[in-house]
């Protein structure tokens, strides 16, 4: 085995410009979808209307126990075939799929955060005669979000790490680009190793930092 350094230098440019840009896009927009839609799901789950909370719970369960990859196929290949025949680009379908998948994880994170707010807080808000919406926006959610922070960080890292699954529906992220580069020469060692290290180098320190944060928030 010998490592082709010249080629490595050459393709690294492409890997870390176009590929990296796509991976960053997926991570950022995927996380935005996951955080916002997840909050919506968490609130729907707490709805007093039975069918709403039941539907939310089943949706979360279903999405969490089926593979992201199949969900991506569904969004990318199925949506165009059924009315109203929405044709999404691979990147959009991927971001949406990744975001919705992890929204079902964030929903649980928020739920744990909300459950962690002491009941006295609700009672105090009622005693102060705060309207329901105000109670949630200025008393409950800020506390719940603070508690949820480390777990949300974990979800963000998970979205980043799982973003390569989009390469299977033809998105050219870091891994997709590496695959393509490899197939050009029928030699995958260099591009896949560099791409793999890229994920390790970012994800491992991020996880360690989140664990620190977790420990700090415990006290």
């Amino acid at each position, binding site marked *: 085995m010998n490592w082709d350094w010249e080629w490595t230098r050459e393709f690294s440019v492409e890997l870390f410009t176009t590929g990296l840009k796509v991976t960053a896009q997926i991570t950022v927009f995927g996380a935005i979808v996951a955080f916002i839609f997840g909050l919506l799901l968490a609130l729907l789950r707490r709805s007093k209307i039975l069918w709403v909370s039941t539907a939310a719970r089943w949706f979360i369960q279903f999405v969490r126990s089926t593979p992201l990859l*199949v969900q991506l196929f569904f969004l990318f290949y199925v949506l165009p075939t059924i009315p109203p025949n929405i044709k999404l680009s691979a990147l959009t379908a991927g971001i949406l799929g990744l975001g919705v998948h992890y929204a079902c994880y964030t929903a649980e994170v928020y739920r744990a955060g909300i459950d962690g707010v002491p009941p006295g807080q609700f009672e105090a808000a009622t005693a102060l005669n705060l309207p329901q919406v105000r109670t949630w926006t200025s008393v409950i959610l800020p506390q719940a979000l603070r508690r949820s922070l480390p*777990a949300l960080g974990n979800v963000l890292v998970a979205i980043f790490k*799982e973003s390569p699954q989009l390469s299977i529906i033809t998105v050219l992220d870091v891994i997709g680009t590496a695959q393509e580069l*490899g197939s050009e020469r029928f*030699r995958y060692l260099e591009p896949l190793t560099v791409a793999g290290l890229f*994920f390790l180098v970012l994800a491992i320190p991020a996880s360690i930092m989140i664990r620190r944060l977790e420990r700090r928030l415990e006290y």
Partner: protein
Amino acid sequence: MATINPCSGDLPGTFGDAMPFICDGAVVTAQVTLGGAALAIVLAAVAGLASTSHAWLVRAVARVYMEFFRGASVLVQLFWIFYAMPAITGYRLSPIFAGVLTLGLNLGAYGSEVVRGAIQAVPVPQREAGIALNFSTYQRMRRIILPQAFVAMVPPGTSLLIELLKATSLVSAISVADMTYQANVTVSSIGNQFTIFGIVMVIYFLMAQVITMVMRVVERRAATMVGRETPKRRPPQMAWTDPAPTSAGGGGKS
């Protein structure tokens, strides 16, 4: 009334065309899940125990394994092992072996965190009582700590097994003929994307339910062993939707 074989090619329409293939794929998915789970459990036990060792070198090796395999997703590791590693080792692994190996290594790393956390959650006085009764270090672990820690491993372990099941779909990317692969093949020949991907998702969902149910029995058994009563009936939600205090059980694989 005749029983209907859900895998029969005589079923009407798309079902008849697709189900025989999907069923073949489901068997492969189950096999890869079981193989990956077996390897993951062994690795989790070994690395989890090693990470509580007094010898720093043993601990460090376990730590490196855990961080390394949790640092990237199954797909990246799978691609590397299947496409890149042959350039180093000189031969290519069979796709199914590469799949089981990667899933085992990856989920085993998450699992060892569960094992470690559960061992550390056993109250210190239990260890001290073991010392006072003159058990050896090995006997303390085997007879006192592990049986108690096991109970705490089950709920986060269940979540990980479901993550493992889901991750098996990725082996389709290296052309293992699992359920996801078969779905793609069938779709490309007969179309009907909605029905076929829909059926496949439902089967994955049902498989996850089977895992949850089996693990709930394991959990109940384990809880009775340490004299804890578990509620016979839980609120109608899955065990893994209540994140365990360990981070491994919380926000999924992260």
